């Protein structure tokens, strides 16, 4: 099965969720800034390549884990991809599209904006990491929930925004 995490730019939320899923980030503690910065693709996806799926690695069950950025078209692109794959004869049991964007908080959004749009990469990256460290347990909960669904024979498809009761959900 292929599991595709998606977010706005495919540089922060989806990368972190995919890394937790693959075991590249620890699930039992909050990683250090260096661990985040060492992640492949973390805050490094070029804006002109947003939309392209990137392979993060396999998980312990042998599933392939990808991440992708959808800009502001998350709902529409998830729908388009589902239609496209159905047209190609790929059953929904063979993939999961999981939205990770609703998990990120204001500081990660601000850091991403500074890093990507205003080219203040060092400063912006530090703010994104600070924000992600505060939100990290929610990312772990998202991945754990998805793994539990996989273990219980979940049949795939498009998963809606992940649960974060305190966070305003962006559409």
């Amino acid at each position, binding site marked *: 099965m*292929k599991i*595709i995490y998606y977010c706005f730019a495919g540089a922060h939320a989806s990368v972190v969720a995919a890394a937790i899923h693959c075991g590249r980030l620890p699930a039992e503690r909050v990683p250090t800034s260096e661990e985040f910065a060492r992640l492949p693709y973390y805050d490094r996806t070029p804006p*002109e*390549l*947003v*939309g*392209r*799926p990137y392979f993060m690695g396999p998980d312990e069950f042998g599933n*392939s884990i*990808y991440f*992708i950025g*959808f*800009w502001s*078209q998350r709902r*529409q*692109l998830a*729908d*388009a*991809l589902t*239609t*496209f*794959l*159905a*047209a*190609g004869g*790929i059953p929904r049991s*063979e*993939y999961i599209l999981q939205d990770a964007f609703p998990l990120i908080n204001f500081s990660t959004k601000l850091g991403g904006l500074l890093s990507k749009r205003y080219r203040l990469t060092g400063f912006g990256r530090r703010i994104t990491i600070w924000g992600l460290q505060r939100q990290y347990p929610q990312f772990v909960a998202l991945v754990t929930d998805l793994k539990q669904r996989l273990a219980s024979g979940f049949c795939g498809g498009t998963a809606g925004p992940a649960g974060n009761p305190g966070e305003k959900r962006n559409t």
Partner: protein
Amino acid sequence: MIIVYHSARFYLPLLACALHLGLSYEAEDFFRAGWAEETGKPLRVMGRDDGGNIVCSLIHGRHGGLYKRALEGAADVFELSCRCIRVEDLLTVRRTGRNLALSRLIACHLPHFLGPAQRRAIARALDRQLKRQREEGRP
């Protein structure tokens, strides 16, 4: 193979798909019904051609590159054969393979101002290009 005709404007991919599949686009309802269906769903499967290819229309607004990368990337990941064709490019590309900026500008923006009056003219031009593509061996 999955063939995706895409454009920022809603009627161009519908027209291209209709011509590719040999459907009638003359009825007023064709575009109206198409538009109603497309508003919530950017990608729509229009049918299967004689060669067994699946023909889809995609309306992406100003996010053409994003949709193209996502679909082509998904095709790579799932090992599907896919071809994305931007209808404006198809309308303006010359036999030499060159794409003239002025004719591209006209194809992109003039129909928007002239409205449905130019639909037949666009359809004729698009039909010619599709036939030429087929002669050149492309699906």
